[in-house]
């Protein structure tokens, strides 16, 4: 795990660590505390991570969805277990964020990272660069979903890119229910699997999706079958041709009822968000804590029970006499929106309004591609419970075309690209409880305008949107 004591990094070369600490202190004042120090240090001392002395447990978390939440859950468990944690949980998940987290917590003289466990979130495409410098003891891969295809091309391409970042000797922790990422474990001894099997979280077998990434086996390419599905292509799968199937799990969410998840029919956890996506995060964090960090299962369960992450992903509000919930999703990620749609449809009342905003795709990239809209299960909004659907932002017309072609009745739609006028529509024309969903690139276009109407407060709901 550790770099050997390189001669190149003797006493005088503590400069990398000192520079990083200094830049981090300055950077945090200008809002670039997580990426800038690492970026600068990586440029000047490209090999400095190789000579750091890391603890035995270095756990990397990657995958399309759920990694930020899972890292936060893991950090909480580790701290509850009395372990000293170093993590990039608040910062960048690209290589420079990892460099910042590690260098800024290292002792300049001994080059030892002051931690019992390092927990790192890593972008799927960046593992190949980050883990060239050191070998994590474990890599947890949450899933490979359709995500930011303008940047990622498609899932098979991301699988190949991530494969380049998995060092020999690293133990993999994989989602037994997601066929593509689970296939990293084929023929790899010591791989640990986690899952969700709770009957209450299984999808209605009649539910149709816009696409099915579970239709064909990722190993041999033939038709695949499912015993049950949790959401989309996540479930208990089996290829009758090559025998590839959901492997046996080390730990699994076996029951979900009365606002509680039960792990291994034993450990009860009251989750912050009661849905199938969060159940996967809980299962991933529990399994990693127990199997990779050696935390006692009772301690892991206790740490997760009732844990509220301060992630701002669910905000409750009131507007025009209606209550509502804002759910942070991710443009170009159909699974995130599908989970939010499921939450809206599982509302116990008879009438809900859905607000969907697409104004800008990315803060970083030129992207006006709208093809991802066709991957979201918008057709489900044809449900009678959904009385009004308010579409806004520059791409409201693309969304309208998508929903109408998907069979959503025209009379439900309010198409208002202008964001200010949209807020008036939300206040005046909503029916029932409001579910508003958009991406972090567009969230403040809604949340800031909301302040004129009401004071949003952080949610403590037991149900909510799932994202990342």
């Amino acid at each position, binding site marked *: 795990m550790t770099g050997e004591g390189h001669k190149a990094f003797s006493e005088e070369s503590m400069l990398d660590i000192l520079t990083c600490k200094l830049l981090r202190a300055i950077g945090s004042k200008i809002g670039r505390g997580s990426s800038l120090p690492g970026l600068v240090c990586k440029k000047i001392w490209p090999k400095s991570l190789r000579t750091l002395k890391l603890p035995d447990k270095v756990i990397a978390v990657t995958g399309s969805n759920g990694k930020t939440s899972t890292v936060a859950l893991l950090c909480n468990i580790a701290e509850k277990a009395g372990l000293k944690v170093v993590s990039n949980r608040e910062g960048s998940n690209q290589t420079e964020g990892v460099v910042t987290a590690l260098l800024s917590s290292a002792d300049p003289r001994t080059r030892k990272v002051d931690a019992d466990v390092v927990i790192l979130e890593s972008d799927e495409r960046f593992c190949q660069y980050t883990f060239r410098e050191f070998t994590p003891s474990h890599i947890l891969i949450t899933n490979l979903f359709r995500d930011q*295809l*303008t*940047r990622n*091309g*498609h*899932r*098979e*391409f991301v699988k190949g890119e991530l494969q380049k970042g998995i060092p020999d000797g690293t133990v993999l922790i994989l989602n037994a229910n997601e066929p593509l990422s689970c296939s990293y474990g084929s023929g790899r001894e010591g791989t640990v699997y986690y899952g969700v099997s709770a009957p209450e979280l299984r999808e209605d077998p009649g539910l149709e999706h*816009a*696409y*099915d990434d579970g*239709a*064909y086996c990722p190993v041999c*390419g033939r*038709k695949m079958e499912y015993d049950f599905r949790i959401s989309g292509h996540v479930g208990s799968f089996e290829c009758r041709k090559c025998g590839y199937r959901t492997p046996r799990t080390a730990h699994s969410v076996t029951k979900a009822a009365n606002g509680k998840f039960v792990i291994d029919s034993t450990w009860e956890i009251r989750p912050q968000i009661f849905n199938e996506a969060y159940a996967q995060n809980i299962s991933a964090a529990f399994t990693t804590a127990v199997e990779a960090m050696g935390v006692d299962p009772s301690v892991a369960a206790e740490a997760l029970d009732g844990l509220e992450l301060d992630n701002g992903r669910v905000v409750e509000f009131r507007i025009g006499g209606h209550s509502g919930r804002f759910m942070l999703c991710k443009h170009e990620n159909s699974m995130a929106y599908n989970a939010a749609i499921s939450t809206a449809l599982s509302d116990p009342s008879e009438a809900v309004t859905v607000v969907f905003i697409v104004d800008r795709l990315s803060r970083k990239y*030129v*992207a*006006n*591609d*709208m*093809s*991802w*809209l*066709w*991957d979201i299960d918008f057709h489900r909004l044809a449900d009678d419970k959904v009385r009004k659907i308010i579409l806004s932002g*520059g*791409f409201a*017309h*693309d969304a*309208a*075309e*998508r929903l*109408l*072609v998907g069979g959503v009745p*025209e009379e439900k*739609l309010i*198409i208002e*690209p202008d964001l200010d006028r949209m807020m008036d529509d939300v206040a005046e024309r909503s029916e029932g409880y409001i579910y508003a969903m958009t991406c972090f690139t567009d969230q403040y276009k809604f949340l800031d305008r909301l302040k004129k109407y009401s004071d949003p407060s952080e949610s403590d709901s037991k149900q909510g949107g799932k994202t990342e």
Partner: protein
Amino acid sequence: MISIIAAYPDFLDLYGEYSAVRLLEKRLACGDRQVKVSTLTFGRYAEIEKADMIYVGAGTENRMLAALEDLRGYAGQLKAFLEKGGILEVSGSSMAIFCNRITDQRSGNRYEGLGVFDAEAEITPKRRYGELICSYGDGKKIIGAVNSSIDFRRNSGQKEMFTVLWDSSKRFQKGAGEGMRTGENVYASEITGPLICRNPRLMDEIAEKLYGDSLPECTDTWYLEAWKAYEHAFGILSAESHIRQDETV
């Protein structure tokens, strides 16, 4: 009754490709013309000879190669279909299926294509994403995105489908040809979006060929929204590229 075959819709299913056939169906329904959509996929034959149109959408490179092997079994029917003037529309990576040859740089393997286009395809390990404005016909503009790792090279006898006016990735130079077109019935483009969803004029033109007469106007909201979406997207790309609607190469 118009008959459209969606080829491998659950397999070549990236970038919302399935919706192209659904939109054509809706557009034709606007002209009171019914459409029968059949699926051609592994182990499931659709009557190619009797179809008016076949649509082949974009998939991953590996899936495209698997679909090629399956389609090879229908080469005779496909030839007869094209000879009688059946409309073939191909999108994204699947354009390679219909080229002369495909070289896969990743494995070093070479594959014989179906030879509908006099062109060569090369699968590279590198992905590129670009947003384009192209023109065709008498200066009509289309927009869309290329999300691809395949290089296509048309031989001298093969016509392109579009002329590129602007490409955000700079892979295509201004004035370069994009896609392939043969006669009045075979169209292929790397541009997805999906192309037909984002470009209602092109949708009308293809629908009109299937309709066989001048296509009645459509006042459905979904169709009007498609036009507004096109105008909004063109506006964004135009602001970046300074390409105007009246621009020619």
